[in-house]
Structures are given as C-alpha cells and as structure tokens.
C-alpha cells in the first residue's frame, strides 16, 4: 500500500477548514479516467477467443468463466424431472419479477426460478432511487441526453430512448402495484413527487422512497409475484445450463433443485434470463456492493448458447463503498448521501472532485488521491472521507428522518455522523455491458430474451444513478410482454407442450474449447461465490 494519512490526522485536517475548499483540477476528465479508472488498468482486459463475440475485449476473470465447460453432461438429464411452461424466467430480482408478472398478465403460464429466494437480489439493495423525467422543466429527451453523455456516447440510442420514454409508465405501474414514492408537496394537485439530484444529470430527476427505494420496490414486487396464480415459483433452483433445439434456438433450461438435490429439466417456449451481474467476482481485487448471488451465471450460459455480448470490459465501481470497519467493507453508501450534500475529502481536508460528477469520474478521482498518498488509513483500511456535516446542520432535519438507512449504517459502523466522517473506497457495483438485446429484450439467440443487469447497451460504458431500477422494470416488462406474445403464437401453431431440447450446444462448445486449446476442466457457472463449491448430487453416477 502506498503512503496514506492517518484517520486521526485527516480528521484534524478536516477540522482546520471551516468550509473545505474544492481543489482546482489540473487533469481533464478523460485523462483522469484513463489513468485511474480500474477499467483502464493494464490487466483489466483481454480478448475473447471463442464464441459469438470472439475478438471483443472482456475482463480476464469474466473471460475465464465465459470460456469454460458446462457443469452437466447428457446423462444428468436422463433421470431428471421433466416440466414444461410457456415462459421460463430465470432470476428472482426486479427484472425477473417484472418479466414474470407481465408475461403472466399477457396470458402465458410462467415459471420463475430463483437461485436463492425470490427478491434476494441487487434490486432490494439499490436504495438511491429511480430516474423519471417528470418535472415541467424536464423531458425524456433530457433524460436521454444525460444518460448518453454519462455513458460516453456508447449506449445503443434506440434502447436508451426506450428507457427514457418508458419511465412515466413504469412509475405508474409501480404505483398500481402499491409502491410508495416520496412527495415534495403533498397538499397540491394530488401531490408532486420529490426529485433528487443524481450525479451527471442536468437537473433533479431521481424519484425515491426515503433512502430504501429498492427495498420498497422489491417487497411490493415479491408479494405480487408470490400471490399471482399464473406464476409458479421455484426458489433455491439455480440454472445450471440452458437447453437448445437443433436449430440453435433456446428450448428452456436445466435447473438444480437444492432442496431435493436433483435436476429439473424445464421445456419452455420462451426463456428470459434475468440473472443480474457479476460483482461477486471481485474484479481487479475490489470489494463489492453486490448481492451474494451476483456471479455472472446467466451471462456464462447465454454466451455458451451463442448470444452476442458487448462492453464486457466496462464496469462500474461505485465511489462510496464502506472502507471501515473491515466487516462492512464494500457495503454501499447510497449516492443519495452525496445528492443531499455529503462531501468527499482527502487526507488534507480538501475536496478534490465535484461529488455529483458521473460515478466513473468520482471513483477515478478517489483512486487518484489514494495513489498520490493523500488517502486516509484506518486500521489498515484505505479510503477517503465522506463528510456528512452538511446533512447534520442545525437547520437540517435529523439524519435518521432524512436518510434512515444511512443513519442505520453509521450506527453499525459505530460512527456519529454529526462529528465523525466515514471512510469510503470505491466498490464494484455494476456490470455496464452484457448480452446484446433488441428493443423487446430479444437476444441474438431465438427463444432467449434477457432483461436487467445481464444486458448491455442501455447505459453505454457508465450508468447514471437511478437508471438501473428503471432499466430492470422497463426492459423486464418489455421482455415479459414479448415472451408472452411469442409463446401465444407458438401455442396457436401447436397446442402440444413445447418440444424438449437437449444440450447439443454444449458439445459444440466443448469442441471449440478444444480447438482453441482452452482449459476444459474449468467449469461454470459458479452459482455461489464462496471458496467452497457446491457439489451437484448425481444419482446416476452414484449408482454406477
């Protein structure tokens, strides 16, 4: 570790400034990102050697998983329980729930399989809010422009335009399901929603519910899914492989039922992957704010089946992860804190970046401070200070009522935010790239749709605050609607259950691995991130 300033000294330096000055910057944003953002590190990118995105850049750790062997073989399917459905949704976060609900409302029979439990996802942890351009001074066009700029002009314009246009309808849908949003003025005009400022946005556009928007959203979505008669819910059933027809289209998936320790083969007319991102891979050695299940499972399976990917070397490191105490390292302090006025200070007590610049810029600026020896060290943990004094002034409502989740976190850290700053360090937060989709969530593989963090293109190479919660619902609903429509069309052709698929694509993949000289003993998806790997129980091999 490079040199750093002690926490005690940094607190003294902070106290010496009545109002901390913002240091004039000598580095352009482009240069700052190129020198300090983790995506630009020398060891952060390699080229994919096989598959439909061969030759494209990808993070090396992710490339290892993408170019690996399957967990199962043909004989695993022999004794497996067979089921069928119109639409199979894989993943129990916000995108999966939205897709399942919309498909069910569209008249399809739906099966939703979740690795952990419905709702155990990044959605429930995404507390900052959701973007929707509702102000009279705002418009979907401005929303589009901000996100396009924030993503370095790399977003797919069509997808991004849909994201911005869908926003108002998404908020209405959420309210119809029973989700609350904060009002700024409850007395007039049926109330006007409260807008918060997000980093990189031209005006306040974040709608939220306190500082636990994702919790409020997910508890409503979970309850709705659980009570929806058209959805069959399979908790603790991770997907271990997709199924294919002879023409290469998706035929459903193979699940592993943890409770009964056996495989389930689900034949589906349409399959929707909503398995999220890959924060638990701890890319570039960073801590992560992500949920336990974020291990890139769906990405690996989609790629093996032939889906195209994009921007697999672009990740978001959220600026304000907890750095101390070590026990809570990587946990997220919502951008809502900076939106409400929290400042970032280096060890000299200086502000070194506009706290509401886009996330990649703020993160790069923080890493620069740490690299230059102006970071702060506390009990062996390195970071910069998050100063909450502006939120705790005498004219402010108590932090516990303003931002209850932040107060709760400060309590867990043993920090009194009115007196002490928190120590923060960037934390791996979001996968900007993913599976290439069209406007209805359709991947390049027929029969396979994707929604949520697993997809790429919507946010370009950097996402703005509040656009993930919007993305999962806007595109979750689109994918669900499209899947129901296509399943209906297939049912109109034949009323028989969907045809059974196989894993011919796995054998093709194994040949490619061998031809490219890649290690076929590496298996993926990971399913669970700990050191201990899950052993899949195999009655067939046990009998042999």
């Amino acid at each position, binding site marked *: 570790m490079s040199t750093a300033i002690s926490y005690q000294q940094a607190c003294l330096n902070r106290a010496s400034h009545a109002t901390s000055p913002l240091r004039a910057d000598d580095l352009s944003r482009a240069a700052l990102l190129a020198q300090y953002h983790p995506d630009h590190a020398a060891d952060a990118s390699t080229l994919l050697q096989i598959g439909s995105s061969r030759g494209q850049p990808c993070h090396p750790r992710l490339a290892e998983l993408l170019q690996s062997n399957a967990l199962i073989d043909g004989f695993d399917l022999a004794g497996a329980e067979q089921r069928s459905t119109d639409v199979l949704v894989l993943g129990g976060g916000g995108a999966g729930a939205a897709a399942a609900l919309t498909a069910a409302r569209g008249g399809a029979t739906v099966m939703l399989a979740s690795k952990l439990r419905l709702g155990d996802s990044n959605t429930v942890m995404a507390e900052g809010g959701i973007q929707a351009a509702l102000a009279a001074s705002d418009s979907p066009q401005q929303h589009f422009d901000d996100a396009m700029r924030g993503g370095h*002009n790399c977003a797919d314009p069509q997808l991004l335009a849909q994201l911005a246009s869908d926003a108002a309808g998404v908020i209405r849908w959420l309210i119809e399901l*029973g989700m609350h949003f904060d009002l700024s003025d409850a007395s007039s005009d049926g109330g006007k929603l409260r807008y918060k400022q997000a980093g990189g946005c031209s005006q306040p556009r974040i709608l939220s519910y306190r500082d636990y928007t994702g919790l409020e959203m997910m508890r409503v979505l979970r309850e709705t899914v659980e009570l929806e008669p058209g959805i069959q819910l399979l908790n603790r059933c991770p997907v271990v492989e997709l199924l294919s027809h002879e023409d290469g289209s998706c035929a459903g998936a193979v699940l592993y039922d943890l409770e009964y320790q056996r495989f389930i083969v689900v034949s589906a007319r349409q399959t929707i992957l909503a398995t999220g991102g890959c924060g638990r891979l701890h890319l570039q050695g960073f801590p992560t704010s992500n949920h336990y299940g974020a291990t890139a499972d769906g990405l690996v399976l989609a790629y093996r089946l032939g889906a195209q990917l994009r921007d697999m070397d672009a990740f978001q490191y959220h600026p304000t992860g907890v750095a101390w105490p070590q026990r809570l390292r990587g946990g997220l302090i919502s951008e809502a804190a900076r939106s409400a006025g929290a400042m970032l200070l280096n060890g000299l007590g200086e502000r070194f970046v506009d706290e509401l610049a886009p996330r990649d810029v703020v993160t790069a600026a923080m890493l620069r401070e740490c690299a230059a020896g102006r970071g702060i060290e506390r009990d062996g943990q390195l970071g910069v200070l998050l100063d909450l004094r502006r939120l705790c002034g005498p004219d402010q409502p108590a932090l516990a009522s303003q931002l209850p989740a932040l107060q709760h976190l400060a309590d867990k850290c043993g920090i009194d935010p009115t007196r002490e700053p928190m120590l923060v360090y960037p934390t791996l937060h979001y996968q900007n790239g993913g599976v290439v989709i069209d406007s209805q969530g359709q991947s390049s593989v027929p029969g396979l749709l994707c929604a949520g963090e697993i997809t790429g293109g919507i946010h370009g190479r950097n996402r703005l605050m509040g656009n993930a919660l919007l993305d999962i619902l806007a595109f979750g609903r689109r994918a669900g609607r499209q899947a129901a429509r296509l399943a209906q069309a297939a049912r109109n052709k034949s009323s028989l259950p969907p045809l059974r698929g196989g894993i011919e694509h796995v054998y093709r993949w194994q040949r490619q691995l061998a031809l490219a000289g890649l290690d076929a003993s590496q298996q993926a998806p990971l399913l669970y991130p700990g050191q201990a790997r899950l052993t899949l129980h195999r009655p067939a091999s046990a009998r042999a």
Partner: protein
Amino acid sequence: MSETICISIDGKVMAAQPGDSILQTRLHGPDAVTANIGCMGQGVCGSCRCLVRKAGERETVSRLACETVVEDGMQVSFIDYYQPDHVHRYRPHDLRDGWQALPQLQQTFPETAHCRHCGGCDRACPRGIPVQQGIALASRGELPAAAALFDACIMCNLCTLACPENIRPNHVGLYLRRAQAIQNLRPGDLLRRLDQQARGQLSIDTTAHLARSES
C-alpha cells in the same frame, strides 16, 4: 488480530475472527452456502435470519446474521424459509376501492382479529417495529396508522413465524401500505407526463447527441 474465538452454527463449531459477523464466519466454513444469505450486511433482504443464544444466557433471540457480530461461545441456528399452508391471495386491483378497505382486510387476513397480545412478534422483529400495535390498529380500522408502523419492514417473516395465530403481520402491514399507494397516490406531475406521452408528445430525437458531440 490473531486471537480467534469459537461459535457454533447449526450445531457445527467454527473458528471466528473477532469483529466479523455471524454470516462472514459461516462463509469461511467448509460448505457452500446456498440459502439464508442475500445482501451480505446491508440488512435489507431478511434472508439471514437466525436464532442466537449468547454464552451463559438462557434467552434465545432472533437476529440477522449479517448484522450481528460474533462473540465467543455464541450458538447460532439459521431459520429456513417455508411457504405457509394457507395464504389468502389478493391482487393489486382488488385494493382499488378504499371504501371496502376494512371488510377486505378482514376477508384477506381474518386472523388479524385473533391477536392474543403475546408480544412474540415484537420480540422477533430485528427492526424494532411495534408489530403487535400495528395489528391492533389494523383490526380497529386505523389503517393509515397501522400501515405507517411497517414502513421499515424488510419482510424477513420472523413475526409471521412467531405468531401462534398465523396472523402473518408483515404481510398485513405490506397489504395496508400497498392499498394506501394504490388508492391515494396520484401525483400531478406524473399524470401530466402520462397524458403528454399518450398524445404522442415528447418523443426523443436519438441523433441529437451526435450533432452536439461533433460541434
């Protein structure tokens, strides 16, 4: 810190680092953790619910493993999730008519009136919500006040598990909160924007940014 302590998780004794949470200790164990785990410390998913008994104490308390720091001699038992036998289904559009709120609540959660005031739900709640009071208010028809009490609920279902009358208090709370939003939340700015878009206004020019980045 080289000092290690021991705790027992689901009957297995494990070495733990002081300062770690119960959940972190469990992750260092020999088995892949596939359940009762979620947000890993944020305390919002309710997955890692467990019963905890400290060394030398008789009382067992319910806690979230991700938020509870280990102590030497602690005994921990994780609580699995089960789908309850009887769930009264309702759909969001059933809640639209606020005039029917009370009879609908009684129909959907008939057990709400059976509260024995045993306080088990209050003791079980890791968020400190006065659950029993919420149920009492609900059964008296003071629905907004009841709903407000469940504002910070993380749906860990510990109160549901604790209730001898199968009231499912957290689901009652969520039902009331949802009904409130469904019936009352009609923000003027949202209505205006939806109306504009329904008229075909405010479409997006997807090429405007190209012109700007060139200039």
